[in-house]
């Protein structure tokens, strides 16, 4: 359950697999992301729940991604995601544009073992127009009330970073409940954590309230500072200087290559 190395924990993430990752605020496994790039993973179908930032931009820039389903990819305060933008305008990747609640609902459909979930909104938008995999039906409980149905999203693997795990494989996720939904929806879940908790998280009812059961977890790697340069809520902030440096370097293909050499292949902070 607790892997000896980060690389060992990442074994379930194979070329071409459907990989689910969380939004920047919920615990992004950045060290694991750099390790995947070093390994040369390819053909990923990335699904962001419901958005992504540096993680998607790095994987796309490094050529690991064939398609991405997301509500947005952006560096937030640091501007647009340059490699995502370049890959889309050049046609290097396929984008399945969604909207945040549609991704949450589609993961919840998989979590609940149902083939679809309904969602309001969307009607008349080009988001819906470009999603041939979504359907519109008449609400059977009312007259002339069209509503969108979204097929369940069952990723092969969910990957995230969390503050704490115990040796039974239980993970402390706190308020970021969509991490539980991701794990419930995915076939396998890989988690990197800041530290290991002695004893069971279920021995303390305060900790248990924020826990995800080990049954859902395939592999765990201990990676202190594993979200760097992004923040881990309530634990550490983002490395603004580094993110600024990334935004500047990644603005060009050459600059991005130099960034990879310096911060990914050189294994610094990985």
């Amino acid at each position, binding site marked *: 359950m607790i892997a000896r190395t980060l690389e060992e924990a990442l074994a379930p993430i194979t070329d071409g697999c459907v990989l689910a990752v969380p939004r920047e605020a919920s615990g992004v496994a950045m060290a694991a992301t750099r390790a995947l790039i070093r390994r040369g993973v390819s053909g990923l179908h990335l699904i962001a729940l419901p958005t992504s930032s540096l993680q998607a931009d790095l994987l796309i820039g490094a050529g690991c991604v064939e398609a991405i389903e997301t509500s947005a990819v952006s560096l937030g305060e640091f501007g647009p995601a340059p490699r995502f933008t370049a890959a889309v305008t050049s046609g290097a990747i396929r984008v399945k544009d969604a909207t945040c609640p549609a991704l949450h609902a589609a993961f919840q459909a998989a979590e609940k073992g149902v083939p679809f979930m309904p969602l309001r*909104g969307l009607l008349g938008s080009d988001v819906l127009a470009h999603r041939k995999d979504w359907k519109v039906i008449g609400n059977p409980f009312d007259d*002339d009330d069209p509503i969108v149905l979204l097929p369940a999203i069952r990723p092969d693997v969910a990957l995230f970073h969390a503050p704490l795990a115990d040796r039974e494989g239980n993970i402390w996720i706190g308020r970021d409940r969509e991490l539980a939904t991701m794990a419930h929806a995915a076939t396998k879940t890989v988690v990197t954590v800041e530290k290991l908790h002695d004893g069971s998280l279920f021995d303390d009812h305060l900790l248990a309230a924020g826990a995800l059961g080990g049954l859902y977890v395939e592999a765990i790697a201990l990676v202190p500072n594993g979200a760097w340069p992004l923040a881990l809520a309530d634990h550490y902030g983002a490395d603004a200087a580094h993110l600024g440096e990334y935004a500047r370097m990644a603005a060009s293909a050459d600059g991005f290559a130099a960034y990879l050499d310096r911060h990914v292949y050189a294994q610094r902070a990985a």
Partner: protein
Amino acid sequence: MDLPLISIGTYMPNAPRDALQTFRDEELLADVIAGLISNARHVAIGASSPIPAAAALLARQRGRGRPYVSLLGSRRQNFFTDGGRELFDCAGQGRIDVFFLSGGQIDGEGNINLVGIGDYARPAVRFPGSFGSSYLYYVVPKVILFRLEHSPRTLVEKVDFVSAPGTSADNVYRPGGPVALVTSRCLFAFDRGNRCFELASVHPGHTVAEVVENTGFDFDHATQVPVTRSPSAETLRILRSIVAPQLVEVYPQFAAQVFGVRAVA
């Protein structure tokens, strides 16, 4: 969810920007938006929206605790504990009265585009994506469109991609939609019945002719368009002494630049 702010330079405490004005543009805009929020029960603010955040906190101070304000990205001014979905579930329950959206393009019918310019498959320009707009624009009663850059590039006749439409057919479930568009130059009110914007007021130092020239879509306006009311001394006091410190957690850079307020470590 707004695109990056226009540069606002550094702040000299209480120094007038020019001979006629004793407040900053951000303060005027926050005051205008706070007026639109008025006495809503619950206002939620998406990421990267410091001016709407300042406006909501100003409205809360005026309303002595109402509206309830949820600042996404904050752990202290945000009660959501059910993950990222709670914002959308809460809106779906009818419990969010006001939200803010923006767009790389906004057109005269209130359609917003957060996806791209040109052909969808191979766009000339790609924006980050639709975020929650394709849902929230339908279910939040008062959506305030906020786009500082007021130019023919951003305010267009017809968007290239509809992340969310300004209005919907009668049989579409749509308790929500746009009520106004706030830019660096003016305030537009949205008329859902006629599916168009009307110029409500022009900010001090700007003119109707300038607005017409910089707007890519047609809009209604009276012969005499009022000037946006300047923030009162009391409003400026609240913004500078009460709201600014509350912004530091989520918008430290903004709080420092606009209000000269910095985090106390």
